[in-house]
């Protein structure tokens, strides 16, 4: 029994090491622009841009198929960074994907939560903690405000609360897009 487990573990370890080495040795250089674009996206994997995640959206931008103004969670900040990187003019968020809202976090009404875990599965950034039949709550620092948890709640106990602007979070509006914020 013990030697069998040890041998299998050894084979698996050798195989793992081999694959790990091969992954480095035979790494295929993808399009470097895709990596750069992806690093600017907020990694919420929310799909509001119409692509199944941030990586596919970055690939679509690199191929020239998608415009740079489709990222709702990233908002104006991301659009400006992408415009900088790609040497394009920044433009307001595509109204097709939604309008930019002030930054918000999800809040769970803990009185109403039935502990169904549906919102935990929906959250792309693991910002909701809780277990089955236990009350859930949102880790505000992790929440990106993507709203994916709101529609899945069967008892409608999740609401979006805007983050109040204080001395820490306030910043100058970018010139040219200032009227959108005014």
């Amino acid at each position: 029994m013990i030697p069998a487990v040890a041998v299998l573990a050894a084979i698996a370890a050798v195989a793992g090491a081999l694959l790990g080495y091969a992954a480095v040795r035979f790494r295929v250089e993808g399009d470097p622009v895709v990596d750069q674009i992806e690093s600017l996206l907020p990694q919420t994997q929310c799909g509001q841009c119409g692509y199944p995640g941030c990586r596919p959206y970055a690939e679509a931008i690199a191929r020239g198929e998608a415009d740079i103004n489709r990222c709702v969670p990233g908002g104006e900040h991301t659009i400006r960074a992408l415009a900088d990187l790609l040497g394009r003019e920044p433009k307001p968020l595509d109204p097709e994907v939604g309008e930019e809202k002030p930054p918000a976090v999800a809040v769970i009404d803990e009185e109403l939560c039935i502990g169904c875990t549906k919102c935990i599965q929906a959250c792309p950034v693991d910002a909701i903690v809780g277990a089955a039949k236990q009350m859930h709550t949102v880790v505000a620092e992790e929440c990106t405000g993507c709203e994916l948890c709101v529609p899945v709640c069967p008892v409608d106990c999740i609401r979006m609360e805007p983050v109040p602007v204080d001395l820490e979070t306030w910043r100058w509006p970018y010139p040219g897009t200032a009227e959108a914020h005014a």
Partner: protein
Amino acid sequence: MSDYLLILVSTVLVNNFVLVKFLGLCPFMGVSRKVETATGMGLATTFVLTLSAVCSYLVSTYVLEPLGLEYLRTIAFILVIAVVVQLTEMVVHKTSPLLYNVLGIFLPLITTNCAVLGVALLNAQTEHGLLESALYGFGAAVGFSLVLALFAAVRERLAAADVPQPFQGAAIALVTAGLMSLAFMGFAGMVHE
């Protein structure tokens, strides 16, 4: 020399893995709609099957048998095959993007091809040597590719044929496969395994 030739003929035609031993039926039915995809799958399988037959032989002879752990063959071979497939995919991706585009989607599918595991286990059971194992795997893969390409060609013709309604789709494909199997049974007895 004639022994090796016999192994090849035996695995390609007489004891064909798909039509006589009935192994690897899922890709046989799944990717035989078009001749191009069938050839792609055949190529990828040939490569992986030969390689995994050799690797499983090495693992079985130099690791499992000295330790008296022959009963671990199945699970160890599954591990080896998965690694070989993954490694092949990485190497092909790096060295030949063209080949990767042709084989790309088929490579991961081979992990679950039971013919691959079947070859490894039969090699261990019949106590083949290294070269015999490699030839056995290669022959099995050539037989698999041959049958897959033939079947795909037949199915392409069937698509245009006037098939009675109750037989359309999977039903006629299975009937065709059965008839092909009957034809290959005609080779039976020519070579003893």
